[in-house]
């Protein structure tokens, strides 16, 4: 047995799209605590810089990038890699959510959601896993999805579909990229208080919110609860776990 700590990123670079707030910010900070250097990607420079300020000096870079512009993601990541060197991993936390039942489904809105929740994630995966970008010894990709990929939640039709798509896609990537020692996993959180989820909850009545929260045996989660699981899945020492989805939901799906 080694005496080395179980999780230590040893200054490896991890790209975190969606790091301006919520789960993405919490994961970026936890990665930093575990020795990673982090590339913070998102649209809002000010918020990304807030995240950067919470990390040790020199351990984070800010890359302002609108993830709905999927066509430029590859070249942007190549530029970043040329600046900082080889990358180790990706934790794709970016996403948009919109509560709409089937009756108000709109194809154009769904397409925009797919762009950010799925296509941009796959473009990021392609950019980071390139032979001339990722570390020669391999790396890890992680997509933050949702328990709504697994359970039906009224009003979350489009969101659930995109998250389910990402889980299915990640399994393919896990098999395709194993030959290059790149692990690919997904993380499905339950309800966690973040700006994204709180925005969706505002559409519900107080009674509906209470009912939803009561469905979590361990209560509603905090971003840090998800961040620790994300770091576990990404950790270089976690060498044999790929193609898996880890549910972290305070017992919601165990009922």
């Amino acid at each position, binding site marked *: 047995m080694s005496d080395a700590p179980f999780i230590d990123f040893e200054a490896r670079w991890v790209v975190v799209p969606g790091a301006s707030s919520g789960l993405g910010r919490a994961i970026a900070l936890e990665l930093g605590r575990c020795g990673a250097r982090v590339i913070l990607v998102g649209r809002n420079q000010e918020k990304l810089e807030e995240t950067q300020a919470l990390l040790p000096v020199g351990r984070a870079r800010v890359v302002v990038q609108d993830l709905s512009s999927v066509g430029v993601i590859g070249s942007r990541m190549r530029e970043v890699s040329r600046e900082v060197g080889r990358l180790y991993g990706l934790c794709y936390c970016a996403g948009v959510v919109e509560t709409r039942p089937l009756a108000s489904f709109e194809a154009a809105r769904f397409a925009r959601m797919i762009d950010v929740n799925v296509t941009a994630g796959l473009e990021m995966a392609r950019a980071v896993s*390139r*032979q*001339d*970008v990722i570390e020669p010894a391999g790396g890890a990709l992680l997509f933050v999805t949702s328990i709504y990929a697994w359970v039906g939640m009224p009003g979350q039709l489009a969101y659930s579909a995109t998250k389910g798509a990402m889980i299915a896609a990640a399994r393919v990537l896990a098999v*395709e990229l194993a*030959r*290059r020692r790149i692990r690919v996993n997904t993380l499905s959180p339950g309800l966690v208080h973040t700006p994204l989820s709180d925005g969706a909850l505002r559409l519900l009545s107080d009674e509906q919110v209470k009912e939803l929260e009561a469905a979590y045996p361990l209560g509603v989660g905090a971003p840090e609860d998800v961040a620790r699981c994300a770091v576990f899945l990404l950790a270089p020492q976690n060498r044999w776990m790929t193609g898996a989805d880890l549910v972290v939901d305070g017992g919601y799906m165990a009922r």
Partner: protein
Amino acid sequence: MDQEQALRWIAEVFEQEPGRLSSSTPRSEVATWDSLGVLTLMAALHEHFGIVMTTDQLTGMKTVGDILEVLQSNGKLA
């Protein structure tokens, strides 16, 4: 497209550093030119040049020069 541009394009397809490949580079020295790499090359030839090849034809290629020959025989390489 001249040979230098073609080599850069092939390097991009196989995710190699530009300038790393020459016409004599064997397939065995290009780590990403495996069975999935063959499919990637097939899609890239079709998408960028309209060249349609079978997996058998592509699997028979042994060097980067073989890809250059395909480009040349299809009028894509000056």
